[in-house]
């Protein structure tokens, strides 16, 4: 039964005791097999997904495949590609795998050639390739810094540039979805390299959106919270417990957002950096825990 809580100033508010409340988290989403959009919403589209062999990239590739798109997944790691292709095969979509290092413009161009020869011109680009590791800024070597920034920023730019040149030459529209992170706006101790790279990638998204709107090319980014997958698990529920949502994201939720942003239903959406994180990045309370300097932490992240 609802009860009334009285406050010291005489103000009162109707409250429902916890035992009466059914939800204790945001509701789980529909099943991953649900395409959300009509099954032919992306028919005739060819999507190239970097970092598409596993994790978030594969989730986006699967969502697009369920809406009728042909899919090319790219990865530096050829053995990952096989398992990605196996997952895509279950959707019935035409799919192929291409080994590519997004840091190398020549490899990017070659990958686009390969996809074009097999599936046709790439009309959707999803820049998901990334890398990250915990490190205090003073311990990040120049090589490590370059590796992270080059994959997330240079790779995104090289792929966007290649995509735009080809779409413009064809006189055809297209859509790009980049991969961001909320720490691009907040910073994050122990992650200076990725923070800087993601901030740059989100800013790049906005600039390219205005430069290429006239060519009919939309550029948006997904700013994802924590979505556990094979390389980033939350078996003990530690991450879920810290979020206002009370749960982590499920892969298909990320996929649906990507599919929507790629679809003609989002034709007026460009330059958007869209957060999907169960409110994780918002301020969670009035008084945070005691601050522990990063160098004094048992676990940096």
């Amino acid at each position: 039964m609802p009860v009334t809580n009285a406050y010291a100033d005489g103000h009162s508010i109707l409250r429902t005791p916890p035992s009466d409340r059914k939800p204790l988290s945001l509701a789980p989403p529909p099943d991953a097999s649900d395409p959300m959009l009509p099954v032919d919403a992306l028919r005739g589209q060819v999507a190239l997904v970097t970092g598409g062999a596993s994790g978030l990239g594969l989730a986006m590739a699967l969502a697009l495949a369920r809406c009728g798109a042909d899919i090319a997944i790219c990865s530096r790691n050829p053995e990952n590609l096989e398992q990605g292709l196996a997952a895509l095969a279950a959707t019935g979509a035409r799919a192929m795998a291409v080994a590519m290092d997004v840091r190398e413009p020549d490899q990017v161009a070659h990958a686009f050639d390969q996809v074009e020869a097999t599936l046709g011109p790439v009309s959707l680009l999803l820049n998901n390739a990334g890398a990250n590791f915990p490190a205090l800024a003073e311990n990040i070597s120049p090589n490590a810094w370059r590796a992270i920034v080059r994959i997330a920023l240079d790779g995104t730019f090289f792929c966007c540039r290649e995509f735009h040149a080809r779409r413009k030459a064809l006189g055809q529209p297209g859509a790009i979805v980049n991969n961001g992170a909320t720490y691009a706006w907040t910073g994050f101790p122990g992650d200076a390299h990725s923070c800087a790279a993601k901030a740059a990638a989100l800013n790049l998204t906005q600039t390219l959106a205005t430069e290429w709107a006239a060519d009919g090319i939309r550029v948006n980014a997904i700013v994802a919270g924590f979505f556990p997958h094979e390389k980033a698990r939350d078996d003990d529920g530690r991450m879920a417990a810290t979020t206002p949502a009370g749960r982590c994201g499920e892969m298909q939720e990320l996929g649906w957002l990507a599919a929507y942003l790629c679809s003609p239903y989002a034709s007026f959406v460009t330059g958007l950096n869209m957060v999907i994180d169960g409110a994780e990045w918002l301020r969670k309370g009035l008084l945070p825990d005691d601050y522990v300097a990063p160098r004094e932490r048992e676990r940096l992240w």
Partner: protein
Amino acid sequence: MLPTPPAAGTPMLSPTALAGRAILICTAFDHWPLALAAAGELARSGAHVAFLSSDSELPCQDEYPSFVLDELEAESLERQLAMIEEHTGPLNGLVYLPPYQPPCPGESMDFATWRRHTHQALDLSFLLTTRLAARCQARGIPGTMVQVVDRAAWSGAPGQVHTAAISAALQTMDKTLAVEWARSDIRLNTIVPGPFVGDVSPEHALAARQDRELADTLPARRLGELQEFGWAVAFLCSPYAAYITGATFIIDGGNHLRRSISGPPFLSVPQWQQLETC
């Protein structure tokens, strides 16, 4: 130019995607085109839709249960919500479109005008969201809310100090309540629309007075089609957006983005417009 979307009436979600949702659209007269587009898409996806407006003209009362807001006061609103629920069943969704405010230089705006505008837009939103959330929480049912705000929330808007302040307040209110209510499975998101065909925003009016094409001012080089707004609202209200809360969805053809390092010579508010009396 950005590509044109599928035709109005093309469904994006399945006819049952929003089954069981009873969504109240609260709008002012000048937002009717956007509000009706949202209603159409929500209804097409299976939601029950009702309208509440502070304007006495209700252009959709034959299609949807429609009500004129009695009074901007909590008890009165509770009574109206109960009445609306007799038509829709328990409400578990809200789409709120605050009225446009006429441009007015800050120094010319008297305090009564300021209070009237902020009271209408901000207080009504607070009352609606909190009353609806309380109902959902008491019943143990989830809820989804979408509020329309202007990009002035973060950019400011010379000549529209009231709009800018209201938009910023609505946006931060959504973020705060999204965190407060996430564990009750009540989601709140903000949607920032750019200029749409058929809308009657101050930008539309100014462009018309200057005999300019509003579409030419956008990176998209076209206005939004109303159905695109409807699809965005339907997506945010749907279970497919179950992990999206406290977020801002901008649908504006790149209108919120900077165009160049510099622009035409800066004009003060009185210079760029013969302002309407407010």
